[in-house]
């Protein structure tokens, strides 16, 4: 089942995981107003020393309103001739409504591969018909990622996209002309400080499955436990990053099992047993059961993550807050950042605060 996605490393059970850390930033306009990339790019520049130029990326929501009902598939081709294979594959399984090269600036000195975007609608046949659209897309994306060498899907959600690569975030933003070309209502970004596979564009964050994206700071010590548990549910980690594991866990718990983030946060970052032991009976039973059942998904070790999908942006740290997080608000704008200065570099917030470890900061689209 695991083939050769990363095309770089051994793919038996004895994987070498990436170690990486970084700066992360997310901003959401909870009224749904779409805005450009300038703010997040400036914020990431402010935290430049947290990365090392070997990975930067952005996820943006609300960028393709004209194709709202289509899954937007962002694909990277490390060899141009692979495109033909992907074209064939997508045309076989989808109705490709439109496709084009993702525009990039010529004179950016990053040596990028080729990027293409496809706007598609599922064309389910045979036994695939029982699958939901989402599951169908996930299945096909996995097939590209594991089955077609030198092609890698960056993102596959509706009306959103991931732009990432090897470079500082502002260089990636310049390459994809994020400031000029796109407007979205949620932007998340990541600056990477990797120590493995430094030269692979697919290894950058955000990590994406459908419209769910994760950016992450830290190195989790429970990776092996989490990964092997997720494998039982058909998730195969092909990038060997902590982020990938978290993204799959989010997909399993939030999309498939439909648990709200308030509960998922307590699975990832549960209260300590001594705190649980002090709770009133009902609560105690709830948390005890949660920890018992979802023990393999406790995310141990330092992490701060920003999870986003349509309508929601969430910031969360590990339960003893080993990685930094600062939240801020200005009107409808909600910020989550590794450092406060990055927020202040781009606006005068009405309020900033530091959430407790394991307590999620949640931004939701206001009902209109």
């Amino acid at each position: 089942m695991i083939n050769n996605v990363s095309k770089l490393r051994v793919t038996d059970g004895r994987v070498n995981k990436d170690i990486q850390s970084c700066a992360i930033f997310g901003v959401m306009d909870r009224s749904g107003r779409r805005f450009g990339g300038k703010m997040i790019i400036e914020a990431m520049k402010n935290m430049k020393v947290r990365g090392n130029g070997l990975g930067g990326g952005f996820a943006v929501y609300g960028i393709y309103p004209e194709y709202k009902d289509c899954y937007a598939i962002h694909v990277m081709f490390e060899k141009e001739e692979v495109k033909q294979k992907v074209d064939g594959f997508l045309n076989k399984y989808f109705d490709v409504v439109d496709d084009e090269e993702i525009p990039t600036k010529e004179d950016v000195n990053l040596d990028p591969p080729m990027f293409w975007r496809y706007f598609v609608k599922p064309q389910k046949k045979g036994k695939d018909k029982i699958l939901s659209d989402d599951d169908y897309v996930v299945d096909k994306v996995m097939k590209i990622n594991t089955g077609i060498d030198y092609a890698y899907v960056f993102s596959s959600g509706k009306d959103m996209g991931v732009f990432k690569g090897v470079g500082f975030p502002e260089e990636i933003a310049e390459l994809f002309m994020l400031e000029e070309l796109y407007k979205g209502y949620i932007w998340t970004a990541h600056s990477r400080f990797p120590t493995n596979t430094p030269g692979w564009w697919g290894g950058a964050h955000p990590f994406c499955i459908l419209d769910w994206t994760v950016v992450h700071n830290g190195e989790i010590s429970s990776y092996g436990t989490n990964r092997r548990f997720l494998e039982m549910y058909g998730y195969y980690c092909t990038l060997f990053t902590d982020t990938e594991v978290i993204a799959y866990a989010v997909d399993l718990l939030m999309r498939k099992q439909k648990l709200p983030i308030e509960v998922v946060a307590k699975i990832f970052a549960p209260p300590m047993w001594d705190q649980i032991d002090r709770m009133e009976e009902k609560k105690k039973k709830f948390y005890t059961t949660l920890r018992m059942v979802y023990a393999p998904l406790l995310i141990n070790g330092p992490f701060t993550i920003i999870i986003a999908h349509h309508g929601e942006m969430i910031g969360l740290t590990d339960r003893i807050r080993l990685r930094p997080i600062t939240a801020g608000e200005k009107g409808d704008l909600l910020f989550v950042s590794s450092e406060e200065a990055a927020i202040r570099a781009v606006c005068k917030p009405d309020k900033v605060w530091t959430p407790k470890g394991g307590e999620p900061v949640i931004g939701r689209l206001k009902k209109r």
Partner: protein
Amino acid sequence: MKSHLLPEFIVERDEERCDNCKVCIKQCPFDVHYYDEEREKVMSKSELCVGCQRCVVYCPRNALRIVPYKAYRPNDYWHEDYIRDIKKQAESGGIILTSCGSSRRAKVYWDHILLNASQVTNPSIDPLREPMELRTFLGRKPDYLEIEFSEDDVEIKTELYPNLMIETPILFAGMSYGAISYNAFKSLAIAAKKFGTLFNTGEGGMPKDMREEFKDCAIVQCASGRFGVDPEYFNYSAAIEIKIGQGAKPGIGGHLPGEKVTATISSTRMIPEGTDAISPAPHHDIYSIEDLSMLIYALKEVTNYEKPICVKIAAVHNVAAIASGMVRAGADIIAIDGFRGGTGATPKIMREHVGIPVELALASVDQRLREEGIRNKCSIIVGGGIRCAADVVKAIALGADAVYIGTAALIALGCTMCQRCHTGKCAWGICTQDPNLSKRLNPKVGAERAYNLLRAWSLEIKDVLGGMGINAIESLRGNRDHLRGIGLEEWELKVLGIKGAGE
């Protein structure tokens, strides 16, 4: 509770030779020997003996022998160590504490590597008569030099990073004042200064009275406990070492028990007398690689970018990736401590079961940094059980720039590896703060012994180099062609990056 523990050593006294002079009583800090008034003779309690051999050496009439006592029925699985430990824990309910480096039976890769020599096709060099150079520079190097030529002048335009110059690729490893006695600490400092190499303060700070004299040959440590750390301490140094971990106990902190925190140690560490000096497991301002970068640059800031910054880690599973991260985070020197590395106190479980051999760690780190094209951005120092000059040569050929010696240096001072440093009763005056014991080590004599060891090993290294036809240590560095393996499996040869003997 009646103790079920058996003695570990038996004291054998030759009654004919012993003239009851009581020297042994005076020499033993563990109260093994005593004078029995009724029988009017010196007797011994074997059950208290730790096997340090102090009394044997100092007995004027050579009347004593201390021999290990293996009492239980031999069993290769339920080895005596396990039986003893279980009994100890059943009686105390505590973590087994020990010291020195791991003594477990595990493959020693140094012993499976053989060195090369020139025969016929190129000449060996006679080190006794021809120049042999061991001078080594430690620190970050630029990718290239920008050189400006004018009429009759050449000038280097490139701004250089601070580098350390040492006359032999051997440094004394970090051992704090506190873990070892002032006299042991000073012995190493004097020897390092005289030989033109460096000693390392460990994490206990630098005694004020030594700062001026030894500032150019001291690597000062910044460890998780931040003991005795102030701007003056950092600026009176040759380099700063951030200690993340150590081979004898990767991943945990440690503590100097309050009874060892004497007046002078308390003033060096800047903590009250008699308080435990606790070193947390992590640096609480480093939870991630970008945090390491933050501390590295904090230290560069506080020393005005004038000192190289070294980062020391224990050799652990993912060591190559970690090392790459360290270099990218700004470390000028990385120090890797293998699982044989020593300590003044460690839980036995950590010493015996955590970490990997330094030979494998070194080979994979060096290879990894070369693959990433950043090997010149740092120097590598390895330590953790370097026992002889041959180990040094093999380490350098595998890719190290220099080695740290800790245990070997202490053996030179008198240590007999009895593994009782944590008791604070070192009979040889090394790992103790008891003034009556520490005065047994005269720093002048200690320095002479440590200096002699450096000299002897340096001569041996030159001998081996000459045999290889190499007259400058830099031509050995990373030169794995001069190594061959014996009795190693394919994967081990691959990790070490060497061929099998005969290949």
